[in-house]
């Protein structure tokens, strides 16, 4: 870190990130050692279920990130506001981060539990994969393309396209699922959860929410710093 004190937003971001990571680590440890063993007759791979304690919070965080991406894209398209672009950029970065986590841990769990890593008839899995693909496209494009209004307009359009894909994917998987019944990713997630499992899951939710906010603040700050740097360089472009 540089000699000068970092701005308060960076300090808050670092604090929240550290807190979130600590909570996530505790959640993982609790998930492995404290959370109950599930009925081995009901589960093919009873230990693999423990992936749940990070998989579900990752999914929730990626959902928040994609919402941020969408809101940012709409704000940019509507008013070309700087905060809209920052939300869009942060949303795509975090959407990629957490989305990758979902689509890697999900198939690993699926392979262990059901012997099938992927299910084209499952809405959630495929929606996350599509949105992660769009997020990857946006992250790569933001790095490779010259920044400017036209580039931002096109990328915001791609971001909105990604969201229009959600209902299309919903229809597509529903139609496909009629003949290929989907694999339920988490059976009994909504009802009848063991209190210990619920506790660890809630711990995971809270930790990842804090982590998400911390990372969002830091990512936002990076974008602000990049803008300030670009402004400083532009001022020097005019010559001495």
């Amino acid at each position, binding site marked *: 870190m540089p000699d000068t004190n970092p701005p308060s937003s960076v300090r808050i971001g670092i604090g929240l990130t550290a807190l979130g990571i600590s909570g996530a680590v505790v959640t993982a440890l609790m998930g492995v050692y404290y959370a109950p063993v599930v009925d081995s007759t009901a589960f093919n791979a009873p230990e693999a279920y423990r992936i749940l304690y990070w998989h579900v919070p990752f999914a929730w965080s990626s959902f928040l990130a994609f919402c941020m991406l969408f809101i940012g894209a709409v704000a940019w*398209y509507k008013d*070309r506001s700087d905060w809209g672009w920052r939300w869009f950029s942060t949303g795509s970065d975090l959407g990629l981060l957490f989305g990758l986590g979902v689509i890697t841990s999900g198939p690993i769990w699926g392979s262990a539990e059901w012997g099938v890593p992927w299910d*084209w008839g499952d809405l959630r899995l495929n929606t996350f*994969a*599509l949105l992660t*693909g*769009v997020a*990857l*496209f946006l992250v*790569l*494009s933001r790095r*490779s*393309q*010259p920044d*400017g209004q*036209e*580039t931002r*307009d*096109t*990328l915001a*359009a*791609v971001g*909105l*396209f990604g969201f*229009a*894909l959600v209902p*299309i*994917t919903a*229809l*597509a*998987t529903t*139609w*496909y699922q*009629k*003949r290929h019944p989907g694999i339920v990713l988490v059976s009994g997630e909504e009802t009848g959860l063991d209190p210990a499992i619920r506790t660890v899951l809630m711990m995971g939710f809270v930790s990842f929410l804090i982590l998400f906010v911390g990372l969002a603040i830091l990512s936002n700050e990076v974008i602000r710093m990049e803008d300030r740097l670009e402004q400083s360089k532009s001022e020097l472009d005019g010559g001495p």
Partner: protein
Amino acid sequence: MGENGSGKTTLIESLVGIIPLTKGQVEWFSEKDEPLIIRNHSGTRKKPHPFGLTLQSDGVCGEEKVTERLITALNVSGIDCSQLEAKQILEEWGMSHRGEDRVSQLSAGLRRRLAVISGMAPAMMCEAPRLVFLDEPSEGLDSFSKGVLKKWIGELSQYGNAIVMASHDEEIIACSSRILTIESGEISESKNNIEEELYMERQFLSERETKTISSLFTWSYSIERRNPVDTIGKATPAILALLLSYSVLTGMDTSQATLSNTNIGNHLTAALILTPAFISAVISPAMIRRLSEEECGKWWSAVCGPQFRPATSIIASSMLLPLPLTYLSWFVLEGSLPVGSSEEILRWLWLPSLVIIDISCAATALHLLVSDLRRSGAAASSLLLIVLIWPFMELVDALSVIMEVGMSSEISIGSPLASIIIASIISAMVWAVAVIIPDA
């Protein structure tokens, strides 16, 4: 006029509707003084009246021939022009000897000359007054061409046409009656007295209704005929995939005992048959690369208006390949796979391959969306194509059911017709979203 980076090109491109607006609107007025909003900040975009346009980057594709380029520019603005008439126009600019040459063979100066002629001719050859937009018209022109340019500017002005020019060139600026100077984002105006000269009467060409989309189709078809890069680029990987499937299958035990009468067997067969056509459908079309040359796509976008994107996504898609590729796959692979009644399959194989054309339109719309990026070659457009796997799998399901139990006309869950309709709907939805959002 203005310094580099002052916004002259941005102004011209905004006036012709290429660039979306953040504030205000661009209104054109017909000779009857009727206003037409070309573009506004809330996303409205209308097709402009016929006009002439010369972009800073020429706006021409290297595959076009010189005469063809001029005739296209005139046709697009509703003027019929024969080869002979085009040659006469080129003669005035000292370019008639280059009429049958491709643009890629021309020097930069000649290319610039052609771009200027194509931008001014739609007004020059038309009796009714028109708008002409010229971005740095004298850039790269020699003294002879500049002389013709100044003469044409004077003539156009005499016949009541309005010319909007962006220029650094003092000689060209001196031809203007109104000079707008852009400095630090502010526009100031000054008047200029021009000596009126008398010009010879000109023979105008006959006018008709503008045919922008059919001109775009004709243009793309003639370029593809001249250099079938698109067809080869799509057919080659498709055929390679087919040959690969064939060589893998001939080494496998695909007997009745292992694959027949199972869902997997029919699914595998259907997937292998449809894959080559699917590959040809999702590959980026050559037309998109052609439109990227020298901002050729921007020129077409300006003259076609809001119809440009939907029309291009259909014109550039793989219309001719899916059907023959699907039947070719069937004939090549038929011997290696255990399948049901081949008569029934042959009778209905055209149906899923027709829907692959829909998939192709959707894929082209996505490639077009990505091509808006300045460095589109650096963008991973394939990531956006993943969604097209669903319609493909619906088609695979449909074909596998046809193989197993034959075709039926009922539309119910699981029936081939329903799967085909669903595949078509999904592709249409993706196409619609990719076409509507960027211009919204």
